[in-house]
């Protein structure tokens, strides 16, 4: 549905923010774009609704070349593509109701339509009683909910989120991400979500692209990228804030075991230990959930017994890498 082909973007300053990006986002998926500050994430997402034009290459949505649009054509496209921002971008001089009504007014909706649609939207984001407040009277999470209601006003089929949760605390982040996931499911919205936090990707995205210095260094399903990262930049980002990268001194074979889905519920290790006489030292590990699957990943040290048999048994339950 969204397709970028060999997209380059250099600014007037000569700075190349994007250096040849190819990307495809399917209808109805939550697509994450993760990268460090300055990687070009905002630049990339702004290409999708024509806030920015590529220097070379094409950006298309449902086969329409976005950069060939201007005037009314571009404005029509923008009504199909909602966008939310890190700093919300609400009008401080307008009430919550009027903020949400603004895209409708711009689209030429009449009073009756606005009076019907805005309460619907406010109810959807859980702010039905806050229509008369000004943004300054709301918490960050509530402001982002207004941003979401506003982005949905014209009934878009694509939602762009540029660091939509970066200004929020972890709990509020979770509730906003839940809302975004619900919208994806209920309305079939295609969502492009920009973030610098792996956690955000893990919670809501189906697929993810890792952007580094203006290039996509890795793309894949979240489980794939998260559990078996190929690019050094991805690994570095995953290891941030943890000591996963620290070398482990262990006298014996070290393996990494990855379990997915129901496999994490099975008492695998103790049974194999009993059967093969091999003992396991758990050197590192993480267990968690993706959008719709559980996973566990352990770094194990093997000692004693029949290690070859133990490895073979482990392979029946999950992926093993040395």
């Amino acid at each position, binding site marked *: 549905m969204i397709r970028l082909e060999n997209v380059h973007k250099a600014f007037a300053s000569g700075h190349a923010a994007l250096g040849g990006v190819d990307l495809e986002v399917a209808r109805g998926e939550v697509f994450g774009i993760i990268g460090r500050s300055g990687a070009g994430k905002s630049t990339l997402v702004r290409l999708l609704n024509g806030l920015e034009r590529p220097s070379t290459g094409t950006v298309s949505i449902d086969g329409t070349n976005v950069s060939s649009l201007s005037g009314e054509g571009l404005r029509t496209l923008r009504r199909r593509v909602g966008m939310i*921002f890190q700093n919300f*971008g*609400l009008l401080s001089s307008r009430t919550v109701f009027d903020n949400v009504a*603004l895209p409708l007014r711009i689209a030429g909706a009449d009073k009756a339509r606005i009076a019907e649609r805005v309460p619907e939207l406010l109810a959807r984001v859980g702010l039905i009683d806050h229509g008369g407040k000004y943004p300054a009277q709301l918490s960050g999470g509530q402001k982002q909910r207004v941003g979401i209601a506003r982005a949905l006003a014209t009934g878009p089929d694509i939602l762009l989120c540029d660091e939509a949760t970066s200004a929020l605390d972890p709990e509020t982040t979770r509730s906003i991400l839940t809302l975004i996931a619900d919208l994806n499911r209920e309305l079939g919205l295609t969502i492009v979500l920009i973030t610098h936090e792996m956690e955000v990707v893990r919670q809501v995205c189906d697929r993810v692209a890792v952007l580094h210095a203006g290039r996509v260094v890795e793309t894949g399903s979240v489980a794939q990228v998260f559990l078996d990262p190929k690019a050094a930049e991805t690994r570095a980002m995953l290891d941030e804030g943890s000591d996963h990268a620290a070398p482990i001194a262990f006298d014996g074979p070290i393996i990494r075991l990855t379990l997915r889905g129901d496999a994490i519920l099975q008492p695998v290790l103790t049974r194999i230990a009993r059967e093969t006489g091999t003992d396991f030292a758990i050197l590192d590990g993480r267990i968690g959930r993706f959008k719709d699957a559980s996973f566990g990943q352990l770094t194990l040290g093997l000692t004693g017994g029949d290690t070859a048999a133990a490895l073979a048994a482990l392979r029946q339950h999950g992926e093993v890498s040395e």
Partner: protein
Amino acid sequence: MSDWFANVDWSEIAQASLDTLTMLGGSLLLTILLGLPLGVLLFLTSPGQVWQNRAVSGVLALAVNLLRSVPFIILLIVMIPLTVLLVGTSLGVAGAIPPLVVGAAPFFARLVESALREVDRNTIEAVQAMGATTRDLVFRALLPEALPGIIAAATVTAIALVSFTAMAGAVGAGGLGDLAIRFGYQRFQTDVMLVTVVLLLVLVQFLQMAGDRLVRHFTRR
């Protein structure tokens, strides 16, 4: 009481006050009508904005800076032919208004431009991302968001205009400034000077208070 203000002709004071208020009201209205679009244009054509255009923005900036760098008293004199062309005379209240507007509008436009710069970049982008035309952007987002700043700008401009009217008085426009100069300064009638200065102070004080109150009323941050 009447001894202290022996030289003060109160009906003359009343007429002069009325002239000052007329000059101020007329020139402030026209200054806003001219300066507001000019300020919006300065903003929109500046780098990074929707109509960014180096040539237009450069020419506008030059014109604005030129008018702002000419001392008002000089402007009053060099504008006489144009003033006569526009309003038929260079004297009296009517004759004062064109130079007042030409002097104040560029100043006001700059203040409007900087008030617009205060509007959150994200907000402008969000409104563009909704599919807004530039007209929507200006009238539905930029002006409402910058309204407190624009009112503050109008207040500063109004107060500057009060002192401009006093100067205009010196070259035949009438008003309180004219009285202060003719009687207070040239004939040493200190009492007349005192009364006019107090009245001007009251006017300035009133403008500032009214402006502040409006700014507060429209501020939602």
